[in-house]
């Protein structure tokens, strides 16, 4: 069967897998952003604490994904849960690192006037530093998102959602009639999704960057 016929026949399934792939990445990145920003906010003041947070999240990134999933199965079973946990773990490093960098990069004069005006440390972080650091943080989120699209294919091994299933079944049936079609369709789907998301980030950046930083 040629590729276009294959696509036509499996279009609905592929679409559903792509939607799930996008959903699991988006959900994981949202969670990772919440966690990563919080870790950054809690540790940026201390070089040691933020150093530890960054080292730990970097170390997590070196765990082979199959091994991490295998470790998670006894705890979380199969499907979405281990997939999301693994993806969150893998996306923390760029987000934490950029949050710390962003919070630290705020102009000293701005911090001095915030303190001199009587903003508490917490008010300064949430009302001044985070909005100013946001473009840097968002860059970290974007890097994580791109990484996750590739990593998320591994979810198929734990019966998780997404285009990994298409690729995996192609690999499993290597030599059979549609094996190559499956591998190509799955891979192309992942790449296209990643491109679409990356494009969306350009818009997101524009919408969420404070206007005063864009003028």
């Amino acid at each position: 069967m040629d590729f276009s016929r294959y696509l036509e026949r499996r279009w609905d399934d592929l679409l559903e897998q792509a939607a799930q792939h996008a959903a699991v990445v988006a959900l994981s990145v949202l969670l990772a952003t919440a966690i990563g920003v919080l870790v950054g906010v809690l540790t940026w003041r201390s070089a040691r604490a933020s150093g530890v947070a960054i080292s730990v999240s970097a170390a997590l990134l070196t765990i082979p994904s199959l091994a991490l999933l295998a470790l998670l199965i006894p705890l979380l079973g199969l499907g979405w849960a281990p997939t999301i946990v693994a993806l969150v773990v893998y996306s923390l490093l760029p987000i934490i690192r950029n949050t710390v960098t962003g919070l630290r990069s705020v102009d000293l004069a701005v911090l001095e006037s915030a303190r001199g005006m009587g903003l508490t440390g917490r008010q300064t972080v949430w009302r001044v530093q985070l909005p100013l650091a946001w473009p840097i943080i968002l860059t970290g989120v974007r890097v994580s998102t791109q990484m996750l699209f590739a990593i998320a294919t591994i979810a198929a091994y734990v019966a998780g959602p997404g285009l990994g299933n298409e690729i995996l079944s192609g690999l499993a049936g290597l030599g059979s009639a549609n094996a190559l079609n499956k591998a190509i369709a799955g891979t192309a789907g992942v790449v296209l999704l990643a491109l679409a998301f990356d494009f969306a980030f350009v818009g997101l950046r524009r919408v969420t960057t404070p206007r005063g930083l864009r003028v």
Partner: protein
Amino acid sequence: MSDIKLVNVTKQYDGQPLPAVDGVTLDIAAGELVVFVGPSGCGKTTTMKMINRLIEPTSGRILLGGTDVMSIEPNELRRHIGYVIQQIGLFPHMTISENIQLVPGLLGWDKTRSRRRADELLELVGLDPVAYRDRYPRQLSGGQQQRVGVARALAADPPVMLMDEPFGATDPITRERLQNEFLRLQAELRKTIVFVTHDFDEAVKLGDRIAVLEERSRIAQYDTPERILATPADDYVASFAGSATAIKRLALIPAERLPGKPLNVANGLPTLDKGGSARDVLDLMIRWGTAQVAVDGGKAVDFETICGLLGDDHGR
């Protein structure tokens, strides 16, 4: 009342051999503008920042309206003290109006009131609210940003203002304009102000009193500009005041207070604009090579009058 008293205040930074501020005692009356002037590193900023507890003194007491500042919660204290720095430090992600409304917001003012207040202050510092309130700091020139910095410090109508070289980063023309506007403002508002500069001429121009500081913030002389120029306490103060102190003193005497002969028509004499000083009168004489100058209300001031001014102790 919001007078400020420093009693034997010392600040010793960790790891420094000598204190940065060494036993300073100083009284600042309510509504008075006091300038700290002294060479770089003498402790002006450190002394000033102890008043709003950005720096904690090692020993000594600072009283604000009779209350020890150490007994006031630092953020609460700072919300009631205006603070302006040379680098301005406006919040770039907030509009001009939002920048000004921040402290009123922290103090729980309602939105309408703080928005009205921001407009009123923009007006006060010479920026049209309609044109500027919704702009962002990056859309303003340095001088305009500095005005917003002053407006922001005034937002919650604090009785006390601390200003650390607020006009230091501007060009001489803008600086002079900001100084003039600031004097006009202070004549109206009568805040208790501590103003830090290392420019002696700025100190003379703005200060009700000047504290000339030496190393470790030791007070070499604390007096009115006129008295410091006329009778410097020691060689240090004299060298700091620089040359041409007689001319600088003339700058402190408004021309309209000068005695003169009535004059019906200016009959060819050079005429001084309103608001000039005795120094400007002298300047006109030299420029025109005349011994008489017409001053706005229709009087003629002569050279002898100007020379006689410095003999006895003239006030402003």
